[in-house]
Each structure stands twice: as structure tokens, then as C-alpha cells.
């Protein structure tokens, strides 16, 4: 019996910070990407916002997609051997929620850097409930792995003794093996785990806050973090009723890839329809103002955050409002961060 490879849950942040690929045995044995928290990823499953879809190369059918979660973006490549995935992706309008099961791949250009990507096996459109659930599940599992890696580093144990300790602590033998590899491969692991913990908390805070009162501390950019730190933490834990009946999960849309459409409007509705009426309905929304500015200021390469903040303040918004608006737009999948400190509408 060949055991099926588990589909690991990792955030994009961790996935793109992974650069340890290995395979045991002969050429037919599976490849694994070992992440800093020791996930031994051959397969992964994630839900995010499709923000870009490009057909690469003339003649050759190769599609590149970017799927963003609250922490970063996954690169997805579908070529001639993934015809269904290619057809599916080419029929989608950005932005929309997608759920993807796929294999971890790496690309190493000559300069020594390693880029991780995903080769899709199975895809579907999703909705905000499925995406939110994925964030919670992935945060839980990543947090557990962080704890296990920390206990591995603190234990001073090695080899079989360390494996035993990890299994005793609840790790599966595969995870224990991955953690051993991660601990010996990654330098500055402690620092990265701290960063990742912060990233997880920020991703979760996105879920607890509503549009008007975004939580502080999202790692949008350094500039934004500065703004956020100056602001008192607001404990806005607000329940969004999970909307999970089967019919709801496919909002009035055909599932045939060629017809698959998710209107941008729907995403707006998805995050707002459970909220009480807004007190300031007739005033222009800070979110919409920032969104407009982001579009106007973009000369094709995105807008630096510092410029966006300055411009927004000139239009009468406060630092807090801009900060909140950007986070909302990010979590709704309406904008993303192509480079650190730069924002762009999807």
C-alpha cells in the first residue's frame, strides 16, 4: 500500500521562505520541500484570492497564476500536463476565491535563489467562508509546528532521541523528520519563527475585525506597521456567521470551468452582508477613497505605501483610516502587495 501524501497547510509566507528541497532514494521517489516549521511538503492545499492570471509563452500552453492569502502569495503554474487546471484557470476572472490542491515545486535560477511554486492537481472556486476556515486551520497547524520546532531547538537533543521526543509531543513521524531537517538546515530559525508567529496573529486578526475597525499590526509594510503601532489595540472580536450550506458555497454559478465567473461584487457582499448597517453610510468610505487613489496613482508598477498615505491624508483621511482601509482591501482581495512597501489594485 502506497501511503497518500498529506496535503500540508502552510501560509504563503512560510512557503516562499522555504528553500530546502530533498528527495530520498531513486528518481521515482517523491520530492519534498521542507519548510522552516518542518512541514515536509510534497502536496499542499490552500485557499486564497486569485489576483493574477497570465498565459506565458507563445504556442505553449502554460498558465501562471498568483493566489494570495493574508500573508503573501502562492505562484501556481499549470502547463500542458495539467490541461484541466489550465482550462479552469483561463476561464476565471480576477479577483476570485480559489481552493487548490497541488504539488510543491521549486525553481532555481543560477544566482542561487530558490523560488517555490505550486503545480495544481485539483482546483475549484471558493468563497470567503471556505477561505476564512482555511486561515483558521492553517494558523492552528502552523502554530503547533512552531511550538514543536521551538521545543526541538530548546531540547538539545539530536537524532533518534529528538524524533522520540517530538513524537511523544504529538508530532507525526513525518513531521518529526521534517523538523529535524528544518532545524539543521535553516539558519536564524528562531528569528523567522518569531516573524511567522506575528504573521499568523495578523492573519487571524483580519478575521476578527470588521471593515471599519481593522486590527493593528498587519504586516502590510514597514511604513504601515509604524502607523499601526501608534494606535491602541482595539479588541473588536465580532462573529461573522459562517455560511456553510452546500448551495451557498457555489454562489449561483456554473461549475464548468469555461463558464466559471465570480463577480467582484460578490466578494464585497461576502464580507459585509453579515454586518449591521453602517453608521456613516452616506459619507464616502475611507476604503473606497483609498481604493480610488490606489487606482489613480498607479502608473503601472503599483503605488508606494508612503505616497499613498500622504495622498490620502491630503484628502482628509487619518493615518488610522488609511491603515484600516488598506487592510480591508487586502483581506477582501481587492489589492495586494507585489513588492514590500508597494500596493496595487487587483
Amino acid at each position, binding site marked *: 500500500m502506497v501511503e497518500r501524501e498529506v496535503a500540508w497547510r502552510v501560509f504563503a509566507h512560510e512557503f516562499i521562505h522555504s528553500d530546502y528541497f530533498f528527495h530520498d532514494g531513486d528518481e521515482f521517489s517523491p520530492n519534498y520541500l521542507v519548510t522552516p516549521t518542518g512541514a515536509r511538503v510534497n502536496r499542499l492545499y490552500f485557499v486564497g484570492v486569485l489576483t493574477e492570471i497570465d498565459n506565458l509563452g507563445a504556442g505553449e500552453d502554460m498558465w501562471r497564476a498568483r493566489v494570495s492569502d493574508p500573508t503573501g502569495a502562492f505562484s501556481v503554474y499549470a502547463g500542458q500536463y495539467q490541461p484541466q487546471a489550465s482550462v479552469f484557470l483561463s476561464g476565471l476572472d480576477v479577483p476570485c476565491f480559489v481552493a487548490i490542491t497541488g504539488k510543491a515545486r521549486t525553481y532555481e535560477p543560477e544566482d542561487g535563489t530558490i523560488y517555490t511554486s505550486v503545480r495544481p492537481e485539483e*482546483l475549484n472556486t471558493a468563497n470567503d467562508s471556505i477561505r476564512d476556515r482555511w486561515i483558521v486551520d492553517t494558523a492552528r497547524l502552523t502554530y503547533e509546528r512552531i511550538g514543536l520546532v521551538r521545543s526541538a531547538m530548546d531540547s538539545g537533543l539530536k537524532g533518534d532521541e529528538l524524533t522520540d521526543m517530538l513524537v511523544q509531543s504529538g508530532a507525526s513521524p513525518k513531521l518529526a523528520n521534517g523538523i529535524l531537517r528544518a532545524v539543521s538546515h535553516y539558519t536564524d530559525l528562531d528569528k523567522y519563527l518569531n516573524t511567522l508567529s506575528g504573521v499568523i496573529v495578523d492573519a487571524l486578526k483580519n478575521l476578527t475585525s470588521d471593515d471599519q475597525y481593522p486590527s493593528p499590526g498587519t504586516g502590510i509594510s514597514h511604513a504601515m506597521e509604524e502607523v499601526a503601532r501608534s494606535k491602541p489595540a482595539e479588541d473588536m472580536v465580532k462573529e461573522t456567521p459562517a455560511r456553510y450550506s452546500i448551495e451557498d458555497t457555489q454562489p449561483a454559478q456554473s461549475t464548468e470551468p469555461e463558464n466559471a465567473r465570480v463577480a467582484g461584487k460578490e466578494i464585497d457582499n461576502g464580507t459585509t452582508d453579515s454586518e449591521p448597517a453602517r453608521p456613516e453610510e452616506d459619507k464616502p468610505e475611507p476604503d473606497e477613497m483609498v481604493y480610488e487613489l490606489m487606482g489613480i496613482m498607479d502608473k503601472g508598477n503599483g503605488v508606494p505605501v508612503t505616497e499613498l498615505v500622504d495622498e490620502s491624508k491630503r484628502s482628509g483621511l487619518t493615518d488610522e483610516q488609511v491603515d484600516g482601509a488598506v487592510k480591508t482591501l487586502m483581506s477582501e482581495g481587492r489589492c495586494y502587495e507585489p513588492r514590500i512597501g508597494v500596493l496595487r489594485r487587483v
Partner: protein
Amino acid sequence: MEVKIAPHVDEIIRALGTTGTTVNQAIIKEELTRLLEFKVPVEEAKRSLLKKYGNIDIPSVKKLSELGAGERNIEVTARILEINTKVVGIKEQERTIFMGTMVDETGARSFTAWDDFGLEKGDVVKVTSAYVRMWQGMPEINFGARSKVEKLDSSALEPLLSKDLERPVLLAELKEGEPAVHTIIRIMESAQQEINTKNGPRTIVTGTAIDSTAKLPFTSWVPSPELTAGNTVEIKNAYMRSWQGIPTINMGEFTSVSHSETPIDDSDIARVMDHVPIRLDKITNRDGAFDVSIEGNIISVRPGSGLITRCPECNRVIQKNICRVHGLVKGRNDMRIKYILDDGTGALTVVLGADLTQKVTGYSIEKAREVAGADMNLSAVEEKIRGKLMGLSMRMRGNMTKGEYGITLVASDVEVTEIKPAAAAADLIKEIEGAIHHSPGQGDSDLW
């Protein structure tokens, strides 16, 4: 590496001497040297020379857990855990044989002694020239007239298992084929059943047992008044045997069933009774599971899902109305879904029958036929189902089995699960920020 050859040659000569064979020392030395030059391990070289000149078989020393079917001439050292006599008819003659269980540091195995070696419970014995037979799917040690049984000082097997075997095992830890099972269970349900055996009708008790970790079916081949629903019983010397892929506790004539001092009460079994889902990495390492609850995402809908056609005679899934056994038949439509459920820690295949397919997709067989259209486009149905299900979080119950094609759970119920992401996220934030020195991975979570 230089092997000092002389002591080995002496040993061979001595061993051959016990059978009355005398061989020229020079010949032995020459042949042994030659075998060693060929890098034959010294033990193997000695064995082959003894076989060649004295027809002596040196038994191979084995641990109980290493024993495989058909091995002969083995030597084991173990403690007799349980021994019982049994009268059997061999060639129309009555004969008393001895059956029981022996343990060493690697495990426990059943044995049958075909002669009276005066063995008693607790003895530590070295058995040589024994052999292994498969009995009820597990290797069993057999020894008889040609075997040698030597009783050893019982300290020879310190600090052996006897202590460990006193500890009852939890149901979730029980493995397929295990003998000498000691466990404490609460009887959930039980019923007497009349079955026909080749020795005439016989009354057995079947039912379901539960503890804090799992539910398992049981079969008692001997009626026992203690096996009544609601009772907590301590069971010693039962054995595990799979029934339709599900590990089942078997109680035979040598099993003791007694009222347990410490009852398993409702709060102990609440997690199992309430179907709290078990994480997949904790369940896929079991040999099988009975009525378990699991939760995860549907990450792949497998080919062959949706509308299918079955042979009306044998229920096989058929293509184009041709059954490979019954030829051309008028196929009967049915529905099923096979999908991969994955929670990030483990994965298995789940099968939903027609009712549950309808429950999760809203498709009746008639509706599925409509989707397939006049030309019965089955892949259209499959694609629709994939679009509806792929990515969803689901919780389901059923029996899990392991087979050639992997791990499968046939669902008896399924539901789409809902959480409140905001509340769950807030809880997790509290846990992360609040418990910096708390070791995660052990924390109780409402998600699992």
C-alpha cells in the same frame, strides 16, 4: 578482517563429535577458510559445514516479533503467559495438546505444544527446533516430539513484560492479530446469536465495546453473563482478529471476563459518544477503526464519482451495461462519491453511498440523470459534484479499513461543518499571545 579460525574449527569438530561423526580437522579448516574468503558470514559458514558433515541443523535464534510463516528450526526464549490443555482428535485418537501464549521483550505470540513438556504458567523456556505455522492469520509457534524445551531461571527474561501485560491497553492501541489482550471495556450493546458450526449449533455473543479512546466490535465464543450492556468488564487473554477489515476483540474459552472494579462512566466515554472528530494522523496509523468521526477538507473528488451503473445480479459497477460476470445486463443506476479527505495531518479516501451523495449535493438519482442528459454524459455529473464539494470542510462517521488501495472510510453519515471564523480566530490569538511558555501541540482545541 582476519578471523581467528581455530576456535571455530574446534567448535565444529566438537559439535560433529556429538553425533558420532569424526572428520579430519584439516578438511574442516580448509573449507571454512575458503567460505570465509568468499565473505560468507562465519555463523553461516559454520552452519553449512555442520549440515554437510553431520546433518546437523543449527536453529536460528529469533525474537517473537520476527517470526514469519513457514520458518522452521528456530530457537525462542520466552515466558509462558498462559497455558491450557485441549483434547483433540488426531487420526481417530484422542490426544491432549497444550495451547497458550508466550511473550518476550518484543511481543506476544500464541503457541501449540504437541507433547507434554510439563510447562506451567510463568515458566521461562528456551524452545529449540520449533517451527512456525499460520493460525488465524498470525504466526504461531509449534513444538513437539522433535523439539527441545529447556526451563530457564525466570530471571533470564528480566525485566520482561509480565509487568507491562498487567497494564490494560486502551482500545485505540489494539493492533490486528494481537494475542494476550488485556483491556477494560464498557459494553455498549450485546446480543446472543445462534450460529451453525461444523460441530453443530453454537451460541455466541456479539456486540460493541467502548472506552475513552474508541469503540470496537467484540465476539465472545463463550456466553458470559458479564457481557451485558452497561457493564464495565476487565478482559484478559482475549485476541484481536479482523472481521471485514475492522479489528474485533475475540474472547475464547481461555479468555477471562470479570466485573471491573473501576467502572467506565459516561464522562469517560463522552468524546467517543459525542463523535468528537479524531485527527487523521492519529487514526491513519491504526489498523482499522469502528464508527469513528473525522473531519477535514475535501481536497480531491475522485474519478468514478457521481452517477454509476451496477449489475442487477451482483451489484458490480459496470460500463456500457456489460458485467464481466453476467454479460449483457440491464444496468441499474446508482450514485456514489469517492473523495480524498485531508486535514493537513493525514489523508484517506471516503466513500458516500446514494443517500449521502444526495444529502451533500442535493442530487437525487433522477436529478443526476437530468444533468447527464440524453447522451448520459457521466463526466458532466462528476464535474458538477466536484464543483460543489472540492474545498469544503466536512465531518463524517463510519468504519475505516486499510487495504491494497490505501485507507478507506465508508461513511454512515456526513455533514458540512460550520465554524465561526471570527470566534475561532480570536480564541487562537488568545492562545498564541497568552501562552508564550505553554507548549503547543498538547493544548485542547475545539477544532479537533
